[in-house]
């Protein structure tokens, strides 16, 4: 599994063998327009719609806010997943330790990003993990996918951050997500570091993958499905 530096990240790189894999693969059949139509109505608002079209953010500061909110949404997702696993209590031994420690980290990331963003922080969406936290096998494969995904997502966003402070923070979280990925991959029987170079994912790809899992449920379907209002005044 030695890889070049220029290849894009593929599903195989996750080596996921469970609930997430099926949904990720199903996603690949969607056309781009199909994806946009689908995400406009499902999950996208919950993930922070602006993050999908960073070019719409005009000022530098607002694009940083968009990126931090994008990061926050991924941290919400992960924190909720580990917290649920801890609450359900189906994990034992090394796996339980991983879930407890990593869950603590993800909750700390949520708290940090929320405080950095203040009133601009997006609200936490509702999640439905469809039972993947209820067994060691599905927990493991989902955690591998989440952590590799988060690592690739931070890597995709970091070069676009304009503030040095935010960039430093994002880099410091990026490498922790990579540690988490290595940790859970090892427990799942995969090489912790499968390739010499980790590839980034852009916001479109990340949201697409997350939405394909249907883990993000709508807080309020009627309002979330609506497009942005026009301001006429």
């Amino acid at each position, binding site marked *: 599994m*030695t890889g070049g*530096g220029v290849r894009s990240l593929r599903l195989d790189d996750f080596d996921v063998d469970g609930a997430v894999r099926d949904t990720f693969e199903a996603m690949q059949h969607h056309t781009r327009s199909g994806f946009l139509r689908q995400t406009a109505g499902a999950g996208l608002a919950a993930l922070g719609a602006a993050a999908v079209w960073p070019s719409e953010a005009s000022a*530098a500061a607002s694009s940083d806010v968009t990126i931090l909110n994008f990061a926050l949404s991924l941290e919400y997702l992960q924190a909720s997943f580990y917290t649920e696993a801890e609450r359900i209590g189906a994990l034992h031994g090394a796996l339980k330790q991983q879930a407890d*420690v*990593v869950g*603590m*980290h993800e909750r*700390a*990331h949520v*708290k*940090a*990003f*929320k*405080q*950095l963003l*203040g009133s601009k922080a997006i609200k936490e969406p509702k999640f439905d993990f469809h039972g993947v936290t209820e067994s060691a096998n599905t927990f493991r494969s989902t955690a591998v996918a989440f952590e590799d995904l988060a*690592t690739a997502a931070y*890597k995709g966003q*970091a*070069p*676009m*951050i*304009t*503030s*040095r*402070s*935010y*960039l*430093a*923070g994002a*880099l*410091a*979280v*990026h*490498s*922790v*997500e*990579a*540690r*988490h*990925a*290595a*940790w859970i991959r*090892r427990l799942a029987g995969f*090489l*912790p*570091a499968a*390739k*010499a*170079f*980790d*590839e*980034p994912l852009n916001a479109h790809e990340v949201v697409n993958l997350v939405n394909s899992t249907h883990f993000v449920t709508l807080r309020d379907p009627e309002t979330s499905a609506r497009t942005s209002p026009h301001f006429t005044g």
Partner: protein
Amino acid sequence: MVVLPGDSTKAGRPPLGHLSRGTLLKGSIAGLGALAGAAVGTTELAASPNAHGSAATDKEILTFGLLIERLQAAFYAEALRSAHLTGEAHQFAKVVGGHEQEHAKFLESALGPAAGKSPQFKFGDAVTDPAKFLATAISLEEAGLGVYNGQGVNLTPATLAAAAKIVSVEARHTAWARALAKELPAPVAVDVPVSVSQAKHTFQQFIVS
């Protein structure tokens, strides 16, 4: 004993001395403090200037990165020859050593003629004693990861994008080494950057010429 690139007392080497403390790391530490601070309940975030770097700074940072990758590659290659590693420790050294070689090649190609020749390294019992090998691997990986993290804010966006592909792999190596040593692979929620001078302290002892 050789002087690491960046020691401004030696002519003919790219000076990294001005990267080692103060100004260039300030942004990094402020940001980290803000995130880490927020995590423990404080909200302070100093207003800070925006990024980002220059071609000259990129080159200096990548040159230091190349030294780290060459040193790590040599370390794993020697350990594979001399430490009688077995099982997962052997697999770790083989896989990670291969990555470090690829990183070195990548940086050599990015730097071109400026890459220069690799110094000579001497690792002593760190490559003959399996326990010492693992402890040294953790220390080298943590220092390498930490210095990449610390200097990331000083890179131009394009170079940062390239370097970030290496950084998370170093983080995976670090976690793997720690797991093998029965330590927590990810001990803290936010990784602490390592200054160039701290990193030099870790690497210097293994450089002989």
